[in-house]
């Protein structure tokens, strides 16, 4: 067994909305929704705790949020501003450790097993970091402290907002016993449903299954579930975590069903993703198509191939194999997304056969 690690997960409280409330004091104490037009089709990117009281949640359609809370102030997201604040917060982390793994603008893992303050108490460090964030930015954060990433992350959620939760190794099992499976890392809606069908509702149920059984039902993830429900998660905090996928998606003004429209949207998405791939000088081996139908049911279909996917043409080529696996053309669609994953850098594929530079033909 590895030596005990000390991991902190810091999660800013209602980050985008809090930044808006801080920058614009008139919004303080009011339900604030950061997202699209309340009458339009965008989704809620973030909402203040005042808005949450009305049942508003992230990723909910703005129109629904508006119905739930007509008094809410709708604010357009200002990503540049959030990025700026995020950098400020990350620089606070850097005073404690270099092992920082940002998950998004408002979330990060810190490995403080060894830290620049020579402080052996991770919980004290967590308190100090949250206090520093508040002093410097007037924003509150919640923190989870534990021996691995999974436990740290679930615990930061427990005393949210503005709270710190520590899970010691002894507390891990009783805590996980009660934890609903949906909260386990890697358990999405589909897996959760499947687990429920198997009678797995919480960690206690999950622990009854052998590694082989879980692998049988959930493939590679099964083995991972077997470990994390025992509080075992050896994933390191990876500071320079590479981008795992490159993608683009678009929500339509109105649901569309015409193939012609859909094709032209997919083509432009493919072109954009292809352009990003070439800008980043990388290629991928997996293409994923995401479709959200008019009724919000969302599916993804993927294909993994041997030849590098590098351009919009490549994406369109493989996309033709994914489309028949969807109900596109028969069911109205409100969102389409494309992403390429299993990314590699071009220079990793040396020796590499160069393509002929046909002016009108992007071959590889």
């Amino acid at each position, binding site marked *: 067994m590895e030596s005990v690690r000390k991991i902190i997960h810091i999660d800013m409280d209602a980050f985008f909305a809090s930044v808006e409330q801080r920058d614009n004091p008139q919004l303080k104490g009011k339900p604030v929704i950061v997202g699209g037009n309340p009458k339009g089709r965008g989704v809620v990117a973030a909402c203040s705790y005042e808005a949450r009281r009305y049942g508003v949640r992230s990723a909910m359609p703005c129109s629904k949020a508006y119905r739930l809370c007509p008094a809410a102030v709708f604010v357009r997201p200002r990503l540049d501003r959030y990025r700026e604040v995020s950098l400020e917060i990350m620089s606070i982390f850097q005073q404690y450790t270099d092992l920082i793994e940002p998950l998004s603008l408002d979330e990060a893992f810190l490995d403080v097993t060894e830290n620049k303050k020579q402080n052996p108490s991770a919980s004290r460090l967590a308190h100090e970091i949250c206090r520093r964030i508040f002093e410097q930015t007037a924003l509150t954060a919640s923190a989870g402290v534990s021996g691995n990433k999974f436990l740290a992350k679930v615990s930061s959620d427990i005393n949210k907002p503005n709270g710190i939760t520590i899970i010691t190794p002894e507390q891990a099992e009783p805590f996980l016993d009660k934890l609903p499976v949906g909260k386990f890392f890697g358990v999405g809606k589909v897996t959760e449903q499947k687990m429920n069908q198997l009678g797995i509702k919480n960690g206690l149920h999950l622990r009854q299954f052998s590694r082989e059984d879980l692998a049988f039902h959930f493939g590679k993830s099964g083995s991972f579930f077997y470990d994390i429900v025992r509080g075992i998660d050896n994933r390191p905090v990876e500071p320079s975590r590479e981008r795992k996928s490159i993608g683009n998606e678009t929500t339509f003004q109105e649901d569309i069903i015409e193939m012609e429209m859909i094709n032209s949207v997919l083509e432009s998405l493919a072109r954009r993703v292809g352009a990003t791939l070439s800008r980043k000088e990388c290629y991928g081996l997996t293409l994923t198509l995401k479709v959200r139908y008019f009724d919000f049911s969302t599916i993804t279909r993927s294909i993994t191939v041997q030849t590098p996917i590098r351009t919009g*043409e*490549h994406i369109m*080529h493989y996309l033709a194999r994914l489309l028949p696996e969807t109900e596109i053309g028969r069911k109205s669609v409100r969102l389409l997304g494309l992403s390429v994953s299993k990314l590699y850098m071009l220079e990793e594929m*040396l*020796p*590499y*056969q*160069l*393509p*002929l*530079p*046909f*002016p*009108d*033909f992007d*071959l*590889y």
Partner: protein
Amino acid sequence: MALKCAVSKNDLMEGLNNLQNITNKRGTTLAILSNVLITTSGSALILTGTDLEVGLKLSVPAEIYEEGTITLPSKKLFEIVRESGSDVVNIEETDNSWVGITAGKSKYNLAGMSSDEFPEFPEYDEEGFNRFESFIFLELIDKVIFSIANEQENVYSLTAVLFEKEKRDGVNYLKMISSDGHRLSIMEKEVAFDIDQLQISDITLIPKKGIQELKKFCEGRDAIEISFEEKQLIIRDHDSVMVIRLKKGEFPRYQAIVDAVALENCVKINRIPFLESLKRINLFTEDIFHTIQLQIENDRMILSSQNADIGDAKDEQSISYPGEPMVVGFNCRYFIETLQVMECETVEAYINSNSSPCLMKAKEDQGFISIIMPMQL
């Protein structure tokens, strides 16, 4: 009417042999496509095979006792005829699409299928054929066939040969171009024939399978008649007819690449010794890319390769090269395949950098250009 005939073993074997590639296509979904259609016409048997891309109809002299039509498994029939110990093979339809075959003392009962299910041979216009000497097409094909992309290799329409005609300074040329995306082969032949009479569309793509069959058709014939229709190419010689379905699609503007290669930095090298050296070095390349390194200096070229499992190899060739020394990586196979179809003594290779196209040609190989992209080492 039940087919009954006698036919020379050698004639029938040759006819069936020519149909084997077409009728033995792997993964075919229609069972009847593995059969050869046999009909009678005057004092001949007409053998027809098709894979729906290429259709071939051949005539074999025969003594016809009773006219009829039937389809028989092409491969099995070919094997029977090939192994038969007699000069004459007798075929007689018995009942329910069965035939009795006798060759000397050997007797076979072979199950066939009714000819009703056999696809119709494509219709074509009897007019509009032009006569060519076969060697023109043979030479065009030989110089480009090796660089056609394989089906699984490519997602674009490079799995076909581009066929073009061109009139320059009053001279008529026929051209074939192929590319697998990494290399490009161009061959043109001067023809003493007014190409204005040849009706072809701007982009005429002959699929790889069609090219292979066209090559076979030309071999052993002095002249062929050719007619291009919108969707198909018809080749004829007396009673033999081949119809090749043309491929739809685009072909890249290959001339742009030819024009982009500066004809300056020229390596001159003896073709045969170079080819032999490449074959030696290729013994130590890795399987997929066959990567070799060419270290080019003023009077010599050092070829080298390495294979993680086997070891490494090095060879040296004298060259004439006035430019700056350089190191370039290539797929060894690409060079070998190009040099193999050339006929010259000294080949000129224009290599401008380790990432720009390398163009090869020679005075004796008139009309031929090969372009190969390097590998990034």
